[in-house]
């Protein structure tokens, strides 16, 4: 039996806490010239949680997370919600493949997902008149991708240490 079925409360607490930390990273004050280096931690965590327990956390989870991120970031309501829903949809429909990939293969796959996320968010924002430059979009995709192996091994170790697998 998986951890999520044995201790659902503990598991969901872990998910919520990780997302709260990611939200803090999303709004932490950065100097304007380092803004582009901000990783899309919320998107990475949504990918991680959806791929690890797709039978419990799916598109509605991603949508709600995205809505909260929109509220927190003061962006257009629904921009992150839509982007994360699309990412979650791809994850739910192909989690078996993603799980079986090697870590570097997975990282390449994640870069495509984060890129898609950035594209959709930027598209929604530009409908309201806020268009970011291509460079800043690419930079955050690269930073987020580089963070994936670190995040993956960190969370894996954490869950193994506390027997939360």
């Amino acid at each position, binding site marked *: 039996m998986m951890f999520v079925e044995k201790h659902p409360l503990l598991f969901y607490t872990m998910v919520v806490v990780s997302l709260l930390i990611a939200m803090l990273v999303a*709004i932490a004050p950065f100097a304007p010239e380092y803004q582009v280096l*901000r990783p899309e931690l919320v998107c990475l965590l949504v990918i991680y949680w959806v791929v690890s327990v797709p039978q419990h956390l799916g598109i509605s989870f991603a949508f709600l997370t995205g809505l909260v991120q929109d509220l927190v970031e*003061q962006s257009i309501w629904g921009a992150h919600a839509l982007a994360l829903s699309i990412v979650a949809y791809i994850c739910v429909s192909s989690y078996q493949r993603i799980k079986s990939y090697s870590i570097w293969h997975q990282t390449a796959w994640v870069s495509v997902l984060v890129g898609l996320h950035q594209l959709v968010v930027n598209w929604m924002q530009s409908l309201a008149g*806020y268009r970011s430059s291509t460079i800043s979009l690419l930079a955050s995709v690269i930073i987020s991708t580089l963070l994936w192996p670190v995040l993956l091994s960190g969370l894996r170790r954490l869950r193994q240490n506390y027997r939360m697998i």
Partner: protein
Amino acid sequence: MHSLKKKSLDITSQFYWVSDLPSKAEQWADNRLVSRSRLLQENNALRSENLVLSQKILKNAALEAENFRLRQLLNASEAVEDRVLIAELIGVAPDPQLHKVIINRGEVHGVYAGQAVLDAFGLMGQVVEVGERYCVVLLVTDSTHALPVKVNRNGVRLVAEGVGNLYELKLRHVANTLDIGVGDLLVSSGLGGRFPAGYPVAEVTEVTIDQGRAFAEVKARPMAKLNRSRHVLLVFEREKEG
């Protein structure tokens, strides 16, 4: 729906409050661990600044009295000083395109949507969303913001719009023959009834006149230190107060 929006602003502001904690701690430590010599130095600097400011006020009093008499001659209503509320900035919207900041004053302090926000140097923006204890301010440089201004020197009315750059405002529909030059101060004109009249907004930095085009291209630099100021002022208009 409205109260839901308000609630959500109050809850999400907590994130900004938490993310502001490190700088709060730094401020606290800065206040505690400051050397005597630096305090003395600061004290001297403040003293001389105070002297300069009081000298300016002396001149101001005479001007104000004169202005009052002239206004009485014109049968105009007297200009009373605006009531202000000091607020502290607790967060900045993370998207560099989105020029919004979150400040720690809300409905319980009497803040209302559309209220003008200033810093010590000029007009910063206006309140767009009000929560219980926090509110969101749209800065004048946001690409969705525009405000009516006038040239301080000759009173020509214009509209200054943001372009998404913290150091730049663009003036719309400036006729090629208009009397405007680099260094002119733009102040809020009070038209539209949103911003109080007479606060400095920007200084003209570039005037490009191309006879081939219908209008001159005029750029200005905001007077307010939009990415530096931590303490801001909320201005209350007299009729909307309360």
